[in-house]
């Protein structure tokens, strides 16, 4: 049972993801463990074959307990490793099925003790399978993949990593170190933070239902007020995205996977830029008075997996490069679903975009978020027939819609806005 937090004393094995006889590689996820905080996946530190599972799912065991035996490939009888966070230093390695611990030099034994390495788990390449210093060093490089941090022990982490861990709320004890001397560095913390967000919902937060119901009430009241107070008018426009999609594919071929752009990024950017044509769609009505907003803080409606909807802002969306906007969007979605939004993001939007098309619907006639005065909707991007130069062709199309407050603007202004979006999307390279 690995220690997955400085305060963790034991954990429940939830699920085995491997079976006896399975071949596993270092880094494979082999089990899921429930700590007090979350369900966490357990990586395997060795490459070999699962020999035996030692703990039944549903069992709570103390940190340091062997969970399974892995036989390393060359000689299962001699080279066995435990899938665990290693017991207390110096504890004799005596898991079931183990043959004699190989003979080693005192220096190697001392080094092993210092580094908390179970000698029995180290494949020996010396005479008679003896574990050499080099073997130990090789093993030492493997072990910190998930450092077994005894309760209360100090984690080796860089100062920047410590600062980030505090800011991101990451428990350093759960982070594997890849920095100098296998210390935890900033990159490790960022990765851990991202993974934890991915994982958060697996823990089955008990408050999810409560939160969803509270959110439902809030949405109900806001939307009712919008429909009651705001005289909506609606416009739609279908836009040919052939140029945009071609450009996007070419651009994405140059970008690494994590930096890739999705069509939504282009649509959002176009919606933000088009505000310059009709600035009166960007702002708030307070006490019947419209105030135009100078900056474009684009609200993005994000549906939550447990139900419900949040529309936090991407600040200054009109001034962000596409790659920046994409990065912000990813970050925003991740944090929205993790419930880690900042206050300003929730209160700042000056106009909102609903991208429900992601779910496959053709067009959206939305409800404005008070006190904003407009909501832009993008339907799904789909190949449809389209007349080009008098001929019928098949093009990727999107239906763009606008719901706007008639107290502030008229249909003509709204139409100008949609046309601006269409024009912008014909020149994706300028977005």
């Amino acid at each position: 049972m690995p220690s997955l937090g400085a305060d963790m004393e034991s954990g429940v094995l939830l699920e085995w993801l491997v079976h006896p006889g399975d071949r596993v590689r270092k880094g494979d996820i082999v089990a899921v463990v429930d700590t007090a905080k979350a369900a966490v996946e357990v990586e395997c530190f060795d490459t070999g074959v699962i020999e035996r599972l030692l703990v039944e799912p549903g069992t709570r065991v103390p940190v340091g307990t062997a969970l399974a035996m892995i036989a390393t490939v060359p000689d299962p009888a001699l080279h066995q490793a435990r899938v665990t966070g290693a017991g207390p230093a110096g504890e004799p390695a005596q898991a079931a099925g183990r043959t004699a611990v190989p003979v080693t030099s005192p220096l190697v034994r001392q080094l092993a003790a210092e580094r908390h390495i179970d000698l029995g788990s180290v494949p020996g390449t010396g005479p008679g399978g003896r574990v050499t210093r080099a073997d130990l060093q090789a093993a030492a490089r493997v072990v910190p993949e998930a450092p077994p941090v005894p309760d209360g022990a100090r984690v080796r982490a860089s100062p920047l990593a410590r600062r980030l861990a505090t800011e991101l709320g990451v428990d350093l004890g759960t982070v594997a170190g890849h920095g100098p001397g296998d210390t935890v560095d900033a990159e490790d913390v960022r990765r851990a933070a991202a993974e934890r967000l991915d994982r958060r919902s697996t823990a089955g937060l008990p408050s999810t239902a409560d939160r969803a119901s509270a959110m439902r009430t809030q949405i109900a009241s806001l939307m009712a007020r919008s429909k009651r107070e705001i005289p909506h008018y609606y416009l739609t426009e279908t836009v040919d995205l052939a140029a945009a999609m071609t450009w996007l594919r070419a651009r994405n071929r140059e970008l690494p996977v994590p930096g890739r752009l999705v069509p939504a990024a282009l649509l959002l950017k176009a919606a933000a830029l088009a505000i310059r044509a009709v600035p009166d769609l960007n702002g708030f009505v307070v006490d019947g008075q419209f105030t135009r907003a100078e900056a474009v803080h684009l609200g993005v409606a994000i549906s939550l997996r447990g139900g419900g909807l949040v529309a936090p802002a991407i600040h200054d969306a009109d001034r962000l490069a596409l790659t920046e906007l994409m990065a912000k969007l990813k970050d925003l979605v991740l944090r929205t679903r993790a419930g880690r939004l900042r206050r300003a993001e929730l209160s700042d939007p000056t106009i909102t975009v609903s991208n429900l098309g992601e779910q496959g619907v053709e067009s959206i006639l939305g409800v404005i978020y008070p006190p904003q005065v407009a909501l832009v909707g993008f339907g799904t991007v789909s190949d449809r027939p389209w007349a080009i130069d008098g001929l019928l062709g098949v093009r990727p199309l999107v239906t763009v819609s606008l719901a706007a407050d008639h107290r502030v603007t008229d249909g003509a202004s709204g139409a100008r806005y949609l046309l601006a979006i269409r024009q912008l999307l014909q020149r994706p390279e300028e977005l």
Partner: protein
Amino acid sequence: MADTTYREAIREAIREAMRRDERVFLMGEDVGPYGGAFGVSLGLLEEFGPERIRDTPLSESAFVGAGIGAALGGMRPIVEVMTVNFSLLALDQIINNAATLLHMSGGQFAVPLVIRMTTGAGRQLAAQHSHSLEGWYAHIPGLRILAPATVADARGMLWPALRCPDPVLIFEYGGLYNASGELDGGAAVDIDTAAVRRPGSDVTIIGYGGTLSTSLTAADRLADDGIDAEVVDLRTLRPLDDATLLDSVRRTHRAVIVDEGWRSGSLSAEISARITEQAFYDLDAPVARVCSAEVPIPYARHMEQAALPQPAGVVAAVRAALGRSDG
């Protein structure tokens, strides 16, 4: 644009200063007919005469102190001391007088003096001509310490140093005298800031004087490995330009200091301390140092080279800081 050597650049700087200000004169051992121990002042005697290109006896304390006195008396002396090792014979004057008089006199007596000396190893001159003691001088409040690492700095630092009312020590790196580079006119440079000589994002390599080229060479090799190193040239060793250093480290989160001085109680230790004091929470790896081995610099080439910071050592230190060491 002309190709100029470091030596010529210093000579031209002296020549220009002496033409512009008649209070400027050069004084030191064999600066006259001999042309200076490293040939810097060759030809200046012919232009300016023995009054202003003044040979001294082998009396470092007397002629360095005389430079201080002449500065107090309204002149703008440039005192040449052959090597930093010899400057120890004038240590009393530099530390007890040049550095203290302004303060001790409650602001009444400034010492607008420039002392030039050679520093550094690499030329098989052994243990009494090769040391890098500029870090010692950088310990002393009241002194300004410059270390030109480029031809442009060799050319441009002298005039502002002479215009400065404080005593300025200029450490010329011996191995650079024959180095050449393009010089765009003779523009004076600032003597207060460090310079980013190569921008990068993964690690900051900090060098000065002779270790700038070591650092740049290392950075080139690291680039082949996909590591993008920033190289900062300290230029001014006292007062240190913390802002430039810290700005760089805050961006790269890692620092490797390359100093030909010894590690113990050194300038590199000082920089490391400042980084940890002021940018601790921006660091993603311990500050690393590549310094000279803790021996008097030996004569034999292989031993001398082994004692000095080399690009390979810098590369290894950077890789270790990035967690990419090979075991």
